[in-house]
């Protein structure tokens, strides 16, 4: 958050230099809206939402799943050496820490 404050400071300064007496509302709103969607778990999870949605059908939706359940599924995919699905092949590339970050993010995000 320190970096964010610093950035807002730059914006404020810039607008003051431009003769603008008050800070526009958008940096605060934007930052508040954006930052939870910008952390490490969020960027890692961008790869999930291309396939997983309530519209999917044969590919399960990830909505409303607790983190522990998502984590266990992903760890199982990673561990099953003879697994053949896309998920088995993908999860072999992710560390346990990555899987923790993804599970935490997906569980708290209604729309991953």
């Amino acid at each position, binding site marked *: 958050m320190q*970096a*964010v*404050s*610093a*950035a*807002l400071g*730059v*914006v404020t300064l*810039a*607008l003051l*230099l*431009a*003769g*603008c*007496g*008050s*800070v*526009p*509302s*958008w940096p605060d*709103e*934007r*930052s508040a*809206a*954006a*930052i939870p*969607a*910008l952390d*490490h778990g*969020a*960027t*890692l999870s*961008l*790869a999930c*939402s*291309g*396939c*997983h*949605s309530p*519209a*999917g*059908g*044969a*590919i399960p939706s990830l909505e409303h799943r607790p983190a522990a359940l998502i984590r266990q599924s992903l760890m199982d995919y990673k561990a099953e050496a003879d697994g*053949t*699905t*896309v998920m088995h*092949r*993908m*999860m*072999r*590339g*992710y560390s346990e820490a*990555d899987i923790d970050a993804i599970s935490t993010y997906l569980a708290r995000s209604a729309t991953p």
Partner: protein
Amino acid sequence: MTAFAQTRRELVIGMAGTAALAGLSPKAAAQTKVRLVVVGGGFGGATAARFLKQLLPNASVTLVEPDTDYYACPFSNLVIAGLRELEAQRFGYDGLRARGIDIVHERATDVDPVAHTVTLGSGAMLSYDRLVLSPGVDFIWGAIEGYDEAAAQVMPHAWKAGAQTALLRRQLEAMKDGGLVVMSVPPAPFRCPPGPYERASLIAHYLKTRKPKSRLLILDAQDKFSKQPLFEEAWAHLYPGVIERLGADDFGRVIAVNPAVRTLATDFENVTADVANVIPPQKAGEIAQRAGVADMTGWCPIDPITFGSALQPDIHVLGDATIAAPMPKSAFSANLQAKLCATQIARVLAGLAPEPTFLANTCYSYLSDDAAVSIAGVYTNEGGKLKSVEGAGGLSPSGSDPVIQGNEALQAAAWFRTITEQTFG
């Protein structure tokens, strides 16, 4: 990262300077919005517009796309083979408009990276603080002697979906049983590396079920190709005697065509086709050359952390137009790159540095109406270089297991529903 941080400072200072020069009232200045312009309404551009608006709701987001209807390339090979209707490939932009994105149905004809403007076909100009280009591919007309836009009306490429898809399907339907279909595959890189071989599989399915005396010849400028062992296994298993392929080592590369008599010439022979599908060599969409983001290869070098152009400031490039190998030129890649690019732009505008992450790709290819195979990849962009993560990704198992391939066909259909809803919904 340093350059990116500097760009952000310039953006902020630039905004302030603009307000001051324009003599805007404090109230008007307070309403100054970050101007984000996206060119190209396919899987990369439409996704980028949606996620930029979602992450930066107070920014102005404009999507420039000449067509009001978008026909998706994934699954269009099923249309060619008569297994799906073209209408199921059609998507529009009302969903994005409802999310507050300005849609401009014009062609972007030029970009001035210094003035930060995009020129439209009408002559109007759009100013941007950040520009995202997702122009897809253009064909290198004339790279195969005799193959130009007029020739494509006789020997369709069907490598941009829509009227060309319908044309190739009609030609197959009109062909007599016992006819010869010829496909010409260009050298890499091109859009959708396994696409020609999925198409060959599905055309073979059509011939086997509807015109069993007919044959398919693939004249290929490549020696090796994507998912090769799985396709070759399927062709032997499902379509014995239907498909013949000549790779580059077998003089398969087509060097000239004559649409008047439907002949294709290699260094070795002339072949006369009843139906000819010529997939031409490709480059980044024309606007990339105009904007100066394409290099001598015809494709666009990028920083894979932000998908910022390596050649021009404040311009990002996504999807098929980029040099992103080992990530393939696929709809999944373009959609994910768009989400990542939007996230990194939002991070920078929120005062956070862009950060490396893992990217991934999945491509399904149909072998028949009810069987599919896939390739997956996981990539790191650590250090500004895209690399495959060792031990991850790879192909579906060989062995033509009908349960596994049937499940992958169902998963492919689910993927298509989800990615098109995320992109256009």
